[in-house]
Protein backbone atom coordinates (compact mmCIF):
# COMPACT_ATOMS: atom_id res chain seq x y z
CA UNK A 1 0.00 0.00 0.00
CA UNK A 2 2.84 2.34 0.82
CA UNK A 3 4.34 1.50 -2.54
CA UNK A 4 1.17 2.52 -4.27
CA UNK A 5 1.14 5.88 -2.56
CA UNK A 6 4.84 6.36 -3.09
CA UNK A 7 4.62 5.82 -6.81
CA UNK A 8 1.43 7.82 -7.08
CA UNK A 9 3.04 10.70 -5.24
CA UNK A 10 6.23 10.52 -7.30
CA UNK A 11 4.39 10.53 -10.60
CA UNK A 12 2.09 13.36 -9.62
CA UNK A 13 4.96 15.39 -8.27
CA UNK A 14 6.94 14.88 -11.46
CA UNK A 15 3.96 15.91 -13.47
CA UNK A 16 3.31 18.93 -11.30
CA UNK A 17 6.85 20.13 -11.82
CA UNK A 18 6.95 19.62 -15.55
CA UNK A 19 3.26 19.71 -16.47
CA UNK A 20 4.13 18.64 -20.00
CA UNK A 21 1.91 15.60 -20.13
CA UNK A 22 -1.19 17.27 -18.76
CA UNK A 23 -0.71 20.32 -20.91
CA UNK A 24 -0.35 18.24 -24.02
CA UNK A 25 -3.43 16.22 -23.18
CA UNK A 26 -5.46 19.35 -22.45
CA UNK A 27 -4.42 21.15 -25.59
CA UNK A 28 -5.12 18.05 -27.62
CA UNK A 29 -8.60 17.75 -26.15
CA UNK A 30 -9.34 21.34 -27.06
CA UNK A 31 -8.20 20.77 -30.61
CA UNK A 32 -10.30 17.64 -30.81
CA UNK A 33 -13.41 19.61 -29.89
CA UNK A 34 -12.74 21.93 -32.78
CA UNK A 35 -12.25 18.95 -35.07
CA UNK A 36 -15.59 17.60 -33.92
CA UNK A 37 -17.22 20.88 -34.78
CA UNK A 38 -16.02 20.56 -38.35
CA UNK A 39 -16.79 16.87 -38.47
CA UNK A 40 -20.42 17.15 -37.40
CA UNK A 41 -22.93 18.06 -40.09
CA UNK A 42 -24.57 20.71 -37.97
CA UNK A 43 -21.44 21.81 -36.19
CA UNK A 44 -20.96 21.37 -32.46
CA UNK A 45 -23.89 23.12 -30.82
CA UNK A 46 -27.03 22.56 -28.83
CA UNK A 47 -28.70 21.14 -31.92
CA UNK A 48 -26.20 18.29 -32.19
CA UNK A 49 -26.41 17.49 -28.51
CA UNK A 50 -27.11 13.78 -29.07
CA UNK A 51 -23.62 13.29 -30.40
CA UNK A 52 -22.05 14.82 -27.33
CA UNK A 53 -21.75 11.74 -25.06
CA UNK A 54 -20.12 9.61 -27.71
CA UNK A 55 -17.80 12.37 -28.81
CA UNK A 56 -16.89 13.12 -25.22
CA UNK A 57 -15.64 9.60 -24.77
CA UNK A 58 -13.79 9.71 -28.07
CA UNK A 59 -12.00 12.78 -26.78
CA UNK A 60 -11.30 10.96 -23.52
CA UNK A 61 -9.83 8.00 -25.32
CA UNK A 62 -7.56 10.19 -27.42
CA UNK A 63 -6.37 11.98 -24.31
CA UNK A 64 -5.86 8.68 -22.53
CA UNK A 65 -3.77 7.29 -25.38
CA UNK A 66 -1.62 10.40 -25.29
CA UNK A 67 -1.12 10.18 -21.57
CA UNK A 68 -0.57 6.43 -21.45
CA UNK A 69 2.03 6.60 -24.16
CA UNK A 70 4.11 8.67 -21.81
CA UNK A 71 3.30 6.69 -18.70
CA UNK A 72 6.50 4.69 -18.66
CA UNK A 73 8.53 6.79 -21.03
CA UNK A 74 10.32 8.69 -18.27
CA UNK A 75 11.33 5.48 -16.58
CA UNK A 76 12.52 3.97 -19.83
CA UNK A 77 14.53 7.01 -20.80
CA UNK A 78 16.25 7.18 -17.45
CA UNK A 79 16.82 3.47 -17.12
CA UNK A 80 14.64 3.42 -14.09
CA UNK A 81 12.51 0.51 -15.23
CA UNK A 82 14.95 -1.97 -13.79
CA UNK A 83 14.84 -0.06 -10.55
CA UNK A 84 11.11 -0.49 -10.43
CA UNK A 85 11.39 -4.13 -11.31
CA UNK A 86 14.12 -4.97 -8.85
CA UNK A 87 12.53 -3.21 -5.91
CA UNK A 88 11.62 -5.80 -3.27
CA UNK A 89 7.93 -5.13 -3.48
CA UNK A 90 4.96 -6.87 -4.95
CA UNK A 91 4.81 -5.57 -8.50
CA UNK A 92 1.07 -5.46 -8.34
CA UNK A 93 1.36 -2.41 -6.10
CA UNK A 94 3.67 -0.74 -8.59
CA UNK A 95 0.96 -1.31 -11.15
CA UNK A 96 -1.71 0.21 -8.93
CA UNK A 97 0.46 3.21 -8.21
CA UNK A 98 1.07 3.81 -11.90
CA UNK A 99 -2.55 3.26 -12.81
CA UNK A 100 -3.66 5.60 -10.05
CA UNK A 101 -1.34 8.31 -11.32
CA UNK A 102 -2.69 7.89 -14.83
CA UNK A 103 -6.20 8.00 -13.42
CA UNK A 104 -5.63 11.27 -11.62
CA UNK A 105 -3.95 12.93 -14.58
CA UNK A 106 -6.56 11.74 -17.01
CA UNK A 107 -9.31 12.71 -14.62
CA UNK A 108 -8.06 16.25 -14.49
CA UNK A 109 -8.06 16.51 -18.25
CA UNK A 110 -11.49 14.88 -18.40
CA UNK A 111 -12.98 17.42 -16.05
CA UNK A 112 -11.79 20.31 -18.16
CA UNK A 113 -12.91 18.62 -21.37
CA UNK A 114 -16.35 18.00 -19.91
CA UNK A 115 -16.67 21.67 -19.10
CA UNK A 116 -15.69 22.62 -22.63
CA UNK A 117 -18.25 20.20 -23.99
CA UNK A 118 -20.89 21.66 -21.72
CA UNK A 119 -20.06 25.07 -23.09
CA UNK A 120 -20.12 24.09 -26.71
CA UNK A 121 -23.07 21.71 -26.71
CA UNK A 122 -25.01 23.69 -24.14
CA UNK A 123 -25.24 20.79 -21.68
CA UNK A 124 -26.53 20.98 -18.18
CA UNK A 125 -23.91 19.08 -16.25
CA UNK A 126 -24.72 20.46 -12.85
CA UNK A 127 -27.98 18.59 -12.58
CA UNK A 128 -26.29 15.22 -12.92
CA UNK A 129 -22.83 16.17 -11.71
CA UNK A 130 -22.39 13.52 -9.03
CA UNK A 131 -23.65 10.60 -11.09
CA UNK A 132 -21.76 11.83 -14.12
CA UNK A 133 -18.54 11.89 -12.16
CA UNK A 134 -19.29 8.37 -11.07
CA UNK A 135 -19.81 7.09 -14.60
CA UNK A 136 -16.76 8.85 -15.92
CA UNK A 137 -14.70 7.56 -13.02
CA UNK A 138 -15.82 4.01 -13.68
CA UNK A 139 -15.07 4.27 -17.37
CA UNK A 140 -11.69 5.81 -16.70
CA UNK A 141 -10.87 3.08 -14.21
CA UNK A 142 -11.29 0.51 -16.96
CA UNK A 143 -9.26 2.67 -19.32
CA UNK A 144 -6.38 3.15 -16.90
CA UNK A 145 -6.08 -0.40 -15.64
CA UNK A 146 -5.74 -2.09 -19.01
CA UNK A 147 -4.01 0.97 -20.42
CA UNK A 148 -1.26 0.94 -17.83
CA UNK A 149 -0.58 -2.75 -18.36
CA UNK A 150 -0.35 -2.44 -22.13
CA UNK A 151 1.62 0.77 -21.90
CA UNK A 152 4.29 -1.05 -19.94
CA UNK A 153 4.50 -3.56 -22.79
CA UNK A 154 4.32 -1.11 -25.64
CA UNK A 155 7.06 1.12 -24.22
CA UNK A 156 9.59 -1.61 -24.93
CA UNK A 157 8.66 -2.20 -28.54
CA UNK A 158 9.21 -0.45 -31.80
CA UNK A 159 6.55 2.04 -32.88
CA UNK A 160 5.17 2.21 -29.38
CA UNK A 161 2.90 5.18 -30.12
CA UNK A 162 1.18 3.21 -32.85
CA UNK A 163 1.18 -0.08 -31.06
CA UNK A 164 -0.49 1.09 -27.87
CA UNK A 165 -3.78 2.11 -29.54
CA UNK A 166 -3.81 -1.09 -31.56
CA UNK A 167 -3.35 -3.17 -28.44
CA UNK A 168 -5.68 -1.16 -26.27
CA UNK A 169 -8.69 -0.17 -28.35
CA UNK A 170 -10.28 -3.62 -28.72
CA UNK A 171 -10.33 -3.88 -24.96
CA UNK A 172 -11.99 -0.51 -24.59
CA UNK A 173 -15.12 -1.44 -26.52
CA UNK A 174 -16.94 -2.97 -23.55
CA UNK A 175 -15.95 -0.01 -21.41
CA UNK A 176 -17.16 2.39 -24.08
CA UNK A 177 -20.45 0.57 -24.40
CA UNK A 178 -21.21 1.08 -20.75
CA UNK A 179 -19.73 4.53 -20.41
CA UNK A 180 -21.33 6.09 -23.47
CA UNK A 181 -24.72 4.55 -22.78
CA UNK A 182 -24.54 5.70 -19.19
CA UNK A 183 -23.39 9.20 -20.05
CA UNK A 184 -25.98 9.59 -22.76
CA UNK A 185 -28.80 8.41 -20.53
CA UNK A 186 -27.66 10.69 -17.73
CA UNK A 187 -27.54 13.74 -19.93
CA UNK A 188 -30.83 12.96 -21.59
CA UNK A 189 -32.95 11.80 -18.70
CA UNK A 190 -30.94 12.26 -15.55
CA UNK A 191 -31.28 8.60 -14.72
CA UNK A 192 -28.50 6.05 -14.91
CA UNK A 193 -29.56 2.75 -16.49
CA UNK A 194 -28.63 -0.19 -14.35
CA UNK A 195 -27.22 -2.23 -17.23
CA UNK A 196 -24.59 0.38 -17.93
CA UNK A 197 -23.59 0.51 -14.30
CA UNK A 198 -23.50 -3.25 -13.99
CA UNK A 199 -21.43 -3.58 -17.14
CA UNK A 200 -18.91 -0.99 -16.06
CA UNK A 201 -18.48 -2.51 -12.64
CA UNK A 202 -17.99 -6.02 -13.98
CA UNK A 203 -15.60 -4.96 -16.72
CA UNK A 204 -13.63 -2.75 -14.35
CA UNK A 205 -13.36 -5.54 -11.84
CA UNK A 206 -12.11 -8.03 -14.40
CA UNK A 207 -9.66 -5.62 -15.98
CA UNK A 208 -8.29 -4.42 -12.68
CA UNK A 209 -7.74 -7.86 -11.22
CA UNK A 210 -6.26 -9.39 -14.35
CA UNK A 211 -3.97 -6.43 -15.00
CA UNK A 212 -2.83 -6.55 -11.39
CA UNK A 213 -1.98 -10.22 -11.70
CA UNK A 214 -0.32 -10.04 -15.09
CA UNK A 215 1.75 -6.94 -14.41
CA UNK A 216 4.60 -8.90 -12.88
CA UNK A 217 5.19 -10.58 -16.22
CA UNK A 218 5.46 -7.25 -17.91
CA UNK A 219 7.84 -5.40 -15.64
CA UNK A 220 11.21 -7.00 -15.75
CA UNK A 221 14.96 -6.63 -15.63
Amino acid sequence: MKVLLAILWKDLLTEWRRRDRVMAMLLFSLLVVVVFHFALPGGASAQTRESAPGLLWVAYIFAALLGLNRAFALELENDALSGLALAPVDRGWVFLGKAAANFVLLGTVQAVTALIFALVFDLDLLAVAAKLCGVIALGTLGLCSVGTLFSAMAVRTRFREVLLPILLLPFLFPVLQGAVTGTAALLATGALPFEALQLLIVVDGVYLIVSFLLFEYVLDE
Partner: protein
Amino acid sequence: MPSKPSPRSDSPAQRNPRREGSPLGGGGEARLATLGNTAGWLLAALVLVYALSVWNAPIDSRQGVIQKILYVHPPLAFGAYLGFILTGLAGGLYLWTHRPVFDRLALSAAEVGVVFCTLMMITGPIWAKGTWGKWWSWDPRLTVTLLLWFVYLAYLLLRSFSEGGERGARFAAVYGLFGVLLIPLNYYVIEIFEGRSMHPENLQSGSLGEGMGLPFLMGVVTNLMAFLFLLARRWEVEHLRANAAAVASREMVSGPISNPEPQGGSDP
Protein backbone atom coordinates in the same frame (compact mmCIF):
# COMPACT_ATOMS: atom_id res chain seq x y z
CA MET B 1 -1.24 -44.56 -41.28
CA PRO B 2 1.35 -46.29 -39.10
CA SER B 3 3.48 -44.12 -36.91
CA LYS B 4 7.07 -43.96 -38.04
CA PRO B 5 9.62 -44.84 -35.37
CA SER B 6 12.19 -42.11 -35.04
CA PRO B 7 15.73 -43.50 -34.83
CA ARG B 8 17.64 -42.12 -31.93
CA SER B 9 20.98 -43.88 -32.25
CA ASP B 10 22.91 -40.81 -31.19
CA SER B 11 20.87 -38.71 -28.83
CA PRO B 12 19.66 -35.33 -29.99
CA ALA B 13 21.29 -33.88 -26.93
CA GLN B 14 24.65 -34.80 -28.39
CA ARG B 15 23.86 -33.39 -31.78
CA ASN B 16 22.32 -30.20 -30.43
CA PRO B 17 23.83 -29.69 -27.02
CA ARG B 18 22.31 -26.28 -26.55
CA ARG B 19 18.76 -27.11 -27.51
CA GLU B 20 16.49 -25.99 -24.73
CA GLY B 21 14.55 -28.70 -22.95
CA SER B 22 10.97 -29.14 -24.05
CA PRO B 23 8.23 -31.68 -23.47
CA LEU B 24 8.62 -32.79 -27.05
CA GLY B 25 12.24 -33.64 -26.43
CA GLY B 26 14.72 -34.47 -29.13
CA GLY B 27 12.32 -36.55 -31.15
CA GLY B 28 9.71 -33.85 -30.89
CA GLU B 29 9.87 -32.64 -34.43
CA ALA B 30 9.59 -36.18 -35.66
CA ARG B 31 6.44 -36.82 -33.70
CA LEU B 32 4.99 -33.53 -34.81
CA ALA B 33 5.84 -34.30 -38.42
CA THR B 34 4.17 -37.68 -38.14
CA LEU B 35 1.09 -36.23 -36.52
CA GLY B 36 0.96 -33.69 -39.30
CA ASN B 37 1.28 -36.38 -41.94
CA THR B 38 -1.54 -38.36 -40.39
CA ALA B 39 -3.71 -35.30 -40.23
CA GLY B 40 -2.90 -34.51 -43.81
CA TRP B 41 -4.01 -37.87 -45.17
CA LEU B 42 -7.13 -37.81 -43.03
CA LEU B 43 -7.88 -34.34 -44.29
CA ALA B 44 -7.60 -35.42 -47.91
CA ALA B 45 -10.13 -38.17 -47.32
CA LEU B 46 -12.43 -35.90 -45.36
CA VAL B 47 -12.40 -33.23 -48.03
CA LEU B 48 -13.71 -35.73 -50.56
CA VAL B 49 -16.57 -36.84 -48.36
CA TYR B 50 -17.23 -33.24 -47.38
CA ALA B 51 -17.45 -32.09 -50.98
CA LEU B 52 -19.84 -34.90 -51.86
CA SER B 53 -22.08 -34.28 -48.89
CA VAL B 54 -22.30 -30.56 -49.56
CA TRP B 55 -23.01 -31.13 -53.22
CA ASN B 56 -25.80 -33.55 -52.41
CA ALA B 57 -27.22 -31.55 -49.52
CA PRO B 58 -30.86 -30.58 -49.92
CA ILE B 59 -31.65 -27.07 -50.98
CA ASP B 60 -33.21 -25.00 -48.23
CA SER B 61 -36.77 -23.93 -48.97
CA ARG B 62 -36.38 -20.45 -47.53
CA GLN B 63 -32.86 -19.35 -48.38
CA GLY B 64 -32.19 -21.39 -51.46
CA VAL B 65 -28.83 -22.63 -52.57
CA ILE B 66 -26.97 -19.95 -50.68
CA GLN B 67 -27.89 -21.65 -47.44
CA LYS B 68 -25.15 -24.15 -48.20
CA ILE B 69 -22.66 -21.62 -46.90
CA LEU B 70 -23.82 -22.93 -43.53
CA TYR B 71 -21.48 -25.85 -44.04
CA VAL B 72 -18.39 -23.69 -44.24
CA HIS B 73 -18.95 -20.45 -42.34
CA PRO B 74 -19.70 -21.71 -38.79
CA PRO B 75 -16.98 -24.39 -39.04
CA LEU B 76 -14.49 -21.65 -39.88
CA ALA B 77 -15.74 -19.79 -36.82
CA PHE B 78 -15.00 -22.84 -34.64
CA GLY B 79 -11.48 -22.86 -36.02
CA ALA B 80 -11.05 -19.17 -35.32
CA TYR B 81 -12.18 -19.52 -31.71
CA LEU B 82 -10.18 -22.69 -31.21
CA GLY B 83 -7.04 -20.95 -32.39
CA PHE B 84 -7.75 -18.09 -30.08
CA ILE B 85 -8.22 -20.28 -27.04
CA LEU B 86 -5.11 -22.28 -27.89
CA THR B 87 -3.09 -19.09 -28.20
CA GLY B 88 -4.22 -17.96 -24.79
CA LEU B 89 -3.69 -21.34 -23.17
CA ALA B 90 -0.29 -21.89 -24.70
CA GLY B 91 0.71 -18.41 -23.63
CA GLY B 92 -0.41 -19.17 -20.12
CA LEU B 93 1.58 -22.40 -20.12
CA TYR B 94 4.59 -20.50 -21.34
CA LEU B 95 4.33 -17.99 -18.52
CA TRP B 96 4.03 -20.86 -16.10
CA THR B 97 6.80 -23.13 -17.37
CA HIS B 98 9.03 -20.84 -19.49
CA ARG B 99 9.36 -23.58 -22.09
CA PRO B 100 9.76 -22.12 -25.57
CA VAL B 101 7.74 -24.94 -27.08
CA PHE B 102 4.59 -23.37 -25.68
CA ASP B 103 5.48 -20.00 -27.05
CA ARG B 104 5.91 -21.57 -30.47
CA LEU B 105 2.52 -23.24 -30.11
CA ALA B 106 0.95 -19.93 -29.19
CA LEU B 107 2.40 -18.22 -32.24
CA SER B 108 1.38 -21.06 -34.53
CA ALA B 109 -2.14 -21.20 -33.16
CA ALA B 110 -2.46 -17.45 -33.57
CA GLU B 111 -1.34 -17.52 -37.15
CA VAL B 112 -3.56 -20.41 -38.20
CA GLY B 113 -6.39 -18.92 -36.17
CA VAL B 114 -6.15 -15.55 -37.85
CA VAL B 115 -6.37 -17.24 -41.23
CA PHE B 116 -9.57 -18.98 -40.18
CA CYS B 117 -10.88 -15.79 -38.60
CA THR B 118 -10.23 -13.81 -41.77
CA LEU B 119 -11.96 -16.46 -43.86
CA MET B 120 -14.90 -16.30 -41.48
CA MET B 121 -15.00 -12.53 -41.85
CA ILE B 122 -15.06 -12.97 -45.62
CA THR B 123 -17.63 -15.75 -45.92
CA GLY B 124 -19.93 -14.13 -43.36
CA PRO B 125 -20.55 -10.91 -45.29
CA ILE B 126 -20.82 -12.85 -48.54
CA TRP B 127 -23.58 -14.92 -46.98
CA ALA B 128 -25.15 -11.82 -45.51
CA LYS B 129 -25.17 -10.02 -48.83
CA GLY B 130 -26.82 -12.99 -50.44
CA THR B 131 -29.55 -13.41 -47.85
CA TRP B 132 -30.18 -10.10 -46.13
CA GLY B 133 -28.92 -7.86 -48.90
CA LYS B 134 -26.24 -6.03 -47.00
CA TRP B 135 -22.62 -6.81 -46.30
CA TRP B 136 -22.44 -5.81 -42.68
CA SER B 137 -24.49 -4.95 -39.65
CA TRP B 138 -23.47 -4.01 -36.15
CA ASP B 139 -25.24 -7.05 -34.86
CA PRO B 140 -23.65 -7.92 -31.49
CA ARG B 141 -22.29 -11.26 -32.59
CA LEU B 142 -20.66 -9.74 -35.64
CA THR B 143 -19.16 -6.99 -33.50
CA VAL B 144 -17.63 -9.48 -31.08
CA THR B 145 -16.18 -11.41 -34.00
CA LEU B 146 -14.70 -8.24 -35.38
CA LEU B 147 -13.17 -7.66 -31.98
CA LEU B 148 -11.70 -11.15 -32.01
CA TRP B 149 -10.14 -10.43 -35.36
CA PHE B 150 -8.66 -7.16 -34.08
CA VAL B 151 -7.18 -8.84 -31.03
CA TYR B 152 -5.62 -11.53 -33.24
CA LEU B 153 -4.05 -8.91 -35.46
CA ALA B 154 -2.89 -6.84 -32.50
CA TYR B 155 -1.31 -9.98 -31.04
CA LEU B 156 0.60 -10.66 -34.23
CA LEU B 157 1.66 -7.03 -34.50
CA LEU B 158 2.86 -7.06 -30.92
CA ARG B 159 5.00 -10.07 -31.72
CA SER B 160 6.47 -8.54 -34.83
CA PHE B 161 7.22 -5.20 -33.16
CA SER B 162 8.76 -6.83 -30.11
CA GLU B 163 12.44 -7.39 -30.10
CA GLY B 164 11.80 -11.13 -29.95
CA GLY B 165 13.31 -13.51 -27.52
CA GLU B 166 12.06 -14.12 -24.05
CA ARG B 167 10.50 -10.72 -23.46
CA GLY B 168 8.62 -10.78 -26.74
CA ALA B 169 7.26 -14.19 -25.92
CA ARG B 170 6.26 -13.09 -22.45
CA PHE B 171 4.45 -9.97 -23.63
CA ALA B 172 2.63 -11.91 -26.31
CA ALA B 173 1.54 -14.46 -23.72
CA VAL B 174 0.17 -11.72 -21.47
CA TYR B 175 -1.75 -10.17 -24.34
CA GLY B 176 -3.05 -13.49 -25.55
CA LEU B 177 -4.25 -14.43 -22.08
CA PHE B 178 -6.00 -11.14 -21.63
CA GLY B 179 -7.50 -11.47 -25.07
CA VAL B 180 -9.05 -14.81 -24.25
CA LEU B 181 -10.91 -13.11 -21.43
CA LEU B 182 -12.24 -10.43 -23.70
CA ILE B 183 -14.44 -12.71 -25.74
CA PRO B 184 -16.62 -14.14 -22.97
CA LEU B 185 -16.72 -10.64 -21.52
CA ASN B 186 -18.18 -9.33 -24.72
CA TYR B 187 -20.78 -12.05 -24.88
CA TYR B 188 -21.71 -10.89 -21.40
CA VAL B 189 -22.05 -7.37 -22.79
CA ILE B 190 -24.40 -8.68 -25.45
CA GLU B 191 -26.42 -10.47 -22.84
CA ILE B 192 -26.79 -7.35 -20.77
CA PHE B 193 -27.66 -5.05 -23.60
CA GLU B 194 -29.64 -7.73 -25.35
CA GLY B 195 -29.39 -6.56 -28.87
CA ARG B 196 -31.90 -8.06 -31.23
CA SER B 197 -29.82 -10.18 -33.47
CA MET B 198 -30.14 -10.70 -37.18
CA HIS B 199 -27.64 -13.46 -36.76
CA PRO B 200 -29.17 -16.93 -36.88
CA GLU B 201 -29.75 -18.33 -33.43
CA ASN B 202 -27.45 -20.97 -32.02
CA LEU B 203 -27.93 -24.19 -33.85
CA GLN B 204 -29.20 -27.03 -31.75
CA SER B 205 -29.55 -30.54 -32.99
CA GLY B 206 -32.95 -30.74 -34.54
CA SER B 207 -33.05 -27.16 -35.69
CA LEU B 208 -31.22 -28.25 -38.80
CA GLY B 209 -33.44 -29.40 -41.59
CA GLU B 210 -33.65 -32.92 -42.97
CA GLY B 211 -30.45 -34.13 -44.55
CA MET B 212 -28.40 -31.18 -43.36
CA GLY B 213 -26.89 -32.93 -40.40
CA LEU B 214 -24.28 -34.84 -42.35
CA PRO B 215 -22.83 -32.03 -44.43
CA PHE B 216 -22.74 -29.82 -41.35
CA LEU B 217 -20.93 -32.49 -39.38
CA MET B 218 -18.55 -33.00 -42.27
CA GLY B 219 -17.98 -29.27 -42.39
CA VAL B 220 -17.06 -29.11 -38.75
CA VAL B 221 -14.85 -32.19 -38.78
CA THR B 222 -13.10 -31.31 -42.03
CA ASN B 223 -12.37 -27.73 -41.03
CA LEU B 224 -11.17 -28.90 -37.65
CA MET B 225 -8.84 -31.39 -39.29
CA ALA B 226 -7.60 -28.68 -41.62
CA PHE B 227 -6.92 -26.52 -38.60
CA LEU B 228 -5.02 -29.26 -36.81
CA PHE B 229 -3.04 -30.16 -39.92
CA LEU B 230 -2.03 -26.57 -40.55
CA LEU B 231 -1.26 -26.12 -36.86
CA ALA B 232 0.99 -29.17 -36.81
CA ARG B 233 2.88 -27.98 -39.88
CA ARG B 234 3.17 -24.41 -38.61
CA TRP B 235 4.36 -25.55 -35.21
CA GLU B 236 6.92 -27.82 -36.81
CA VAL B 237 8.15 -24.97 -39.00
CA GLU B 238 8.52 -22.82 -35.91
CA HIS B 239 10.61 -25.52 -34.22
CA LEU B 240 12.74 -25.86 -37.34
CA ARG B 241 13.26 -22.12 -37.53
CA ALA B 242 14.35 -22.02 -33.92
CA ASN B 243 16.79 -24.86 -34.49
CA ALA B 244 18.16 -23.20 -37.60
CA ALA B 245 18.71 -20.01 -35.65
CA ALA B 246 20.45 -21.90 -32.88
CA VAL B 247 22.70 -23.72 -35.32
CA ALA B 248 23.47 -20.50 -37.16
CA SER B 249 24.45 -18.68 -34.00
CA ARG B 250 26.60 -21.58 -32.90
CA GLU B 251 28.30 -21.72 -36.27
CA MET B 252 29.08 -18.05 -36.02
CA VAL B 253 30.97 -18.74 -32.83
CA SER B 254 32.69 -22.04 -33.54
CA GLY B 255 32.69 -22.66 -37.26
CA PRO B 256 30.54 -24.98 -39.40
CA ILE B 257 29.41 -28.24 -37.91
CA SER B 258 29.46 -31.40 -39.97
CA ASN B 259 26.09 -33.12 -39.87
CA PRO B 260 25.02 -36.74 -40.29
CA GLU B 261 22.93 -37.88 -43.26
CA PRO B 262 19.51 -36.30 -43.48
CA GLN B 263 16.57 -38.63 -42.90
CA GLY B 264 13.60 -38.17 -45.21
CA GLY B 265 9.99 -38.08 -44.12
CA SER B 266 6.91 -38.58 -46.24
CA ASP B 267 4.84 -35.58 -47.20
CA PRO B 268 1.19 -36.03 -48.12
